[in-house]
């Protein structure tokens, strides 16, 4: 009787498999224990926090920096989003910061020396009603004035670009037109975080995971360190880049911010043949979808109605999203939902970020990216690093200060961005 694989013990099978698997790649960033003191401590090891640390080191020559992450690197919204990248926002302030970010994306793989499947496959934003049409046209003209690439497409031109889309006039939400940003696209989100982490680590940044910030050492209204689950760490400056948990951290530091934390869900299908090579968004019917390189359809749903920190949302929100998606893409009716998940997004009253100084000296905040922060990762890190290094905001994030809620100079991107932000 011959021995088959089945007669081997599980351990032996495991050892045999291990011998045939490729070697584990070397760690991309060094695992370190926190030092007693840093020049800058960044709270939050998502894309924005890592990018902030990277640009602090690269653009401003600082190296004594720590990024402190409660969970694991990029375990929050960074790797839970639908990876859409674009810059076609309505207002000048938003256009400027998102376009700066998009320009950074265009050379990011070379800059970080790390592949991230950045693909400028174009982003379509559909209009479904007369008022929707008007607001999208307005957005299209605003983009043209700001030098942001944007085209206006008729339903027939939409169909030509995305043949699987249903442009029948007799559906509940017919496609009446669309804006198209050819330079928009997608990237592989976890690789973005890893690329920034590796590049920051190579420049001497300490990345400390599994460590929760539990309080701040504030004397004479000046931050001098953070208390963490691994003990106290002194810090010259502290940057809060904690997305959905920003309110909690701000309260620990003694001030309030106008942020509400809500679940935002997304889902993927199993791997399918490539049928969609453009990102399609529709704020009006809550659909945003692209097809990843491997072949899964990646779709975003809307936010749940209520505040939550649970990183999960209601299934009826997914159901609503899929109903709209099926009307738009009848071919998807044969696809299955493989997996759904949620992240906790930080929503400001005007759906724009808050980046800048706080009431506490040397304590800086970057929050409020809400449902659309992934696309801003490079630009957000760039201006946050400038703000921390110089103690004053960069030209691009000046309008996004916390004070705008007192002065009334809000940057209302609800209309332009909708939920598909």
């Amino acid at each position, binding site marked *: 009787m011959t021995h088959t694989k089945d007669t081997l013990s599980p351990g032996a099978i495991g050892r045999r498999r291990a011998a045939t698997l490729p070697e584990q790649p070397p760690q991309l960033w060094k695992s370190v224990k926190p030092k007693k003191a840093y020049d800058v401590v960044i709270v939050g090891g998502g894309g924005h926090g890592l990018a902030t640390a990277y640009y602090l080191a690269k653009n401003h020559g600082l190296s004594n920096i720590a990024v402190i992450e409660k969970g694991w690197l990029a375990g929050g919204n960074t790797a839970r989003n639908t990876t859409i990248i674009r810059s076609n926002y309505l207002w000048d302030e938003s256009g400027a910061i998102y376009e700066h970010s998009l320009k950074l994306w265009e050379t990011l793989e070379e800059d970080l020396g790390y592949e991230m499947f950045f693909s400028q496959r174009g982003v379509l934003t559909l209009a479904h009603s007369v008022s929707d049409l008007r607001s999208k046209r307005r957005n299209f003209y605003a983009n043209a004035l700001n030098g942001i690439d944007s085209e206006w497409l008729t339903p027939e031109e939409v169909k030509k670009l995305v043949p699987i889309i249903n442009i029948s006039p007799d559906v509940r939400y017919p496609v009446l037109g669309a804006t198209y940003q050819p330079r928009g696209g997608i990237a592989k989100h976890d690789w973005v975080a890893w690329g920034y982490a590796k590049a920051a680590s190579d420049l001497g940044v300490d990345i400390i995971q599994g460590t929760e910030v539990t309080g701040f050492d504030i004397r004479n209204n000046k931050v001098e360190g953070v208390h963490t689950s691994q003990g106290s760490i002194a810090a010259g400056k502290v940057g809060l880049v904690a997305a959905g*948990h920003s*309110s*909690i951290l701000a309260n620990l530091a003694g001030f*309030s*911010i*106008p*942020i*509400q*934390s809500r679940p935002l869900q997304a889902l993927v299908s199993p791997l399918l043949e490539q049928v969609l090579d453009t990102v399609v968004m529709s704020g009006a019917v809550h659909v945003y979808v692209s097809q990843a390189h491997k072949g899964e359809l990646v779709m975003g749903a809307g936010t749940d*109605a*209520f*505040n*939550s*920190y*649970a990183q999960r949302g*209601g*299934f*009826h929100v997914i159901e609503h999203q899929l109903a709209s998606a099926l009307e738009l893409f009848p071919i998807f009716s044969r696809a299955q939902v493989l997996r759904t998940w949620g992240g906790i997004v930080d929503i400001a*009253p005007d759906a724009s970020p808050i980046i800048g100084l706080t009431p506490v000296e040397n304590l800086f905040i970057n929050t409020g990216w809400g449902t659309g922060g992934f696309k801003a990762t490079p630009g957000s890190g760039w201006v946050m690093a400038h703000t921390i290094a110089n103690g004053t905001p960069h030209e691009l994030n000046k309008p996004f200060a916390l004070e705008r*809620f*007192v*002065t009334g100079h809000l940057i209302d991107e609800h209309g332009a961005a909708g939920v598909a932000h």
Partner: protein
Amino acid sequence: MLNIPCPYCGLRNETEFHYGAEAGVGYPDPNTLSDSEWAKYLHIRANPKGWLPERWVHFAGCGRWFNLWRNTVTHEIGPAYLPFTTQPKAPDPDSNRDRMEGAKA
């Protein structure tokens, strides 16, 4: 999906309700406030990790507003109460879990 106890209609699905954020925020006299106090009234609402008293409106039922304790981490539902009445205390997490288990059975 949450099951929300409307004080007027009883337990109904979340999709019959709209959310109104933090409950018990009084309307101040704008003439007596500084700009930053007014900004605080307009824009700052509680965003805690845990029990939150919040407003809901049963738009697909009686159409009336009420207040409700809800936990933002576990999504447990606490007691509902009417506006302008005494706010019940924040539920004790464990006793509330028992109550919810009982409600399901």
